[in-house]
């Protein structure tokens, strides 16, 4: 303590200067609006930037939960899309002449529901590629359901266990998807030739179609598995097959198979109804 007092006494000039200068600064900041505002402002900026940095770091630890939440929410939102609803159907008996509530008269029928799933295993470098997802029969996943992401088509569910399912990727020799050109509706089958995981081949496009690089290719409405209008990719290049009036189109896939993390499993609720009906007419033909 005595040392401190001697120290201050020794440097009394400097100490006095500091005291007086602090008094002045106090007066400046207290009594001048501009200086006060910018003092408070800059001190707020310092504290805010520290807090923002720490929050940014903290957010990284919550990213996983946050992603899962978002994926689930997206799946729910997708169910509300126009494409997920089959039509405005009139399920009420129209022969009745009595007054029917105009709102009850038209009922939307849900056609597609979506389940978000995380990719737990993935491959792109084989001829026949599969994915494994962390949703299974317990979560309502069934065979042959479609799997998509927000950027495009992924594949089709192949096998289902209790909590997992395997997906036959679009990058599989047995996968063929019916697709169409968005601009004029000409359609054809799409398959993967096994070379580059970002390109697939679309055949049987008639030669009268004027193709331009960058034309959008989407899923066709004739498929019972995939919802219509799901992005497949864009036209990259095309060649005419020898002595056939068809183009073979190289399609750049919009799905980045290397980067898949969250996907949606699509459940077509009207699939069975449609397939039973179609099978019935098939058998009729044979008879």
């Amino acid at each position, binding site marked *: 303590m005595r040392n401190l007092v001697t120290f201050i006494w020794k440097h*009394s*000039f*400097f100490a*006095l*200067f500091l005291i*007086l*200068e602090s*008094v*002045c*600064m*106090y*007066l*400046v*900041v*207290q*009594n*001048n609006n*501009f*200086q006060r505002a*910018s*003092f408070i402002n800059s001190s707020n900026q310092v504290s805010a930037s520290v807090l923002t940095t720490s929050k940014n770091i903290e957010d990284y630890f919550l990213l996983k939960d946050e992603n899962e939440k978002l994926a689930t929410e997206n799946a729910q939102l997708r169910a509300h899309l126009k494409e997920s609803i089959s039509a405005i159907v009139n399920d009420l008996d129209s022969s009745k002449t009595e007054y029917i509530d105009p709102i009850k008269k038209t009922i939307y029928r849900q056609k597609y529901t979506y389940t978000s799933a995380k990719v737990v295993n993935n491959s792109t470098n084989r001829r026949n590629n599969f994915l494994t997802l962390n949703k299974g029969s317990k979560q309502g996943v069934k065979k042959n359901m479609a799997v998509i992401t927000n950027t495009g088509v992924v594949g089709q569910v192949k096998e289902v266990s209790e909590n997992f399912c395997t997906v036959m990727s679009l990058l599989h020799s047995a996968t063929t998807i019916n697709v169409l050109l968005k601009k004029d509706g000409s359609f054809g089958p799409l398959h993967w030739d096994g070379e580059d995981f970002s390109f697939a081949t679309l055949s049987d496009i008639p030669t009268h179609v004027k193709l331009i690089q960058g034309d959008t290719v989407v899923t066709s409405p004739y498929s019972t598995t995939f919802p219509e209008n799901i992005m497949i990719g864009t036209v990259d290049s095309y060649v005419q097959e020898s002595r056939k009036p068809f183009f073979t189109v190289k399609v750049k896939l919009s799905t980045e198979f290397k980067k898949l993390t969250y996907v949606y499993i699509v459940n077509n609720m009207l699939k069975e109804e449609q397939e039973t009906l179609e099978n019935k007419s098939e058998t009729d033909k044979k008879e």
Partner: protein
Amino acid sequence: MLTEIFRNIIRFFLLVLVQVLLIKNIELGRFINPFMYVLFIIILPFETPKWLLLFSAFALGIAIDYFYDTAGMHSAACVLMAFVRPGILKLFSPRDGYEFGTQPTVQYLGIPWFLSYAGILIFLHHFFLFFIEVFRFSEFFSTFLRVIISSVFTLLLVVMAQYLFQGKKEQG
């Protein structure tokens, strides 16, 4: 000695009055704001105790602040100026020190000495003052220009004032 103190007290009030009644009302444009009142701190006698130096500078600054409505700004600049004054005096001291009974004025030590001594003090004072007033560095160069030009004008006024009161000084 007593007359010396008395003379300084009178000078204090005179300079404050000249500053706030005369110079404050002369508008020479955005870049020229001379503050002649610092003359008081510049020509305080060599023997002034350091604590008295700080306190008188503080009082002078407060007095000016009172009229300029700039609470604390001028006093902060003045206290800083008083704080560096002993160091500057030491830096420019003649080989055998300052003669007893003399003052740091043009009359005793000549124009070149006074210009460098007062120039540094005035520049520091103005620099500090203008930057507290602006309170940000984003307009650094325009503020710096104000500092330079105003310092030159203040120095000019300070030297002129010394010649005006030359007769009196030599008597004292």
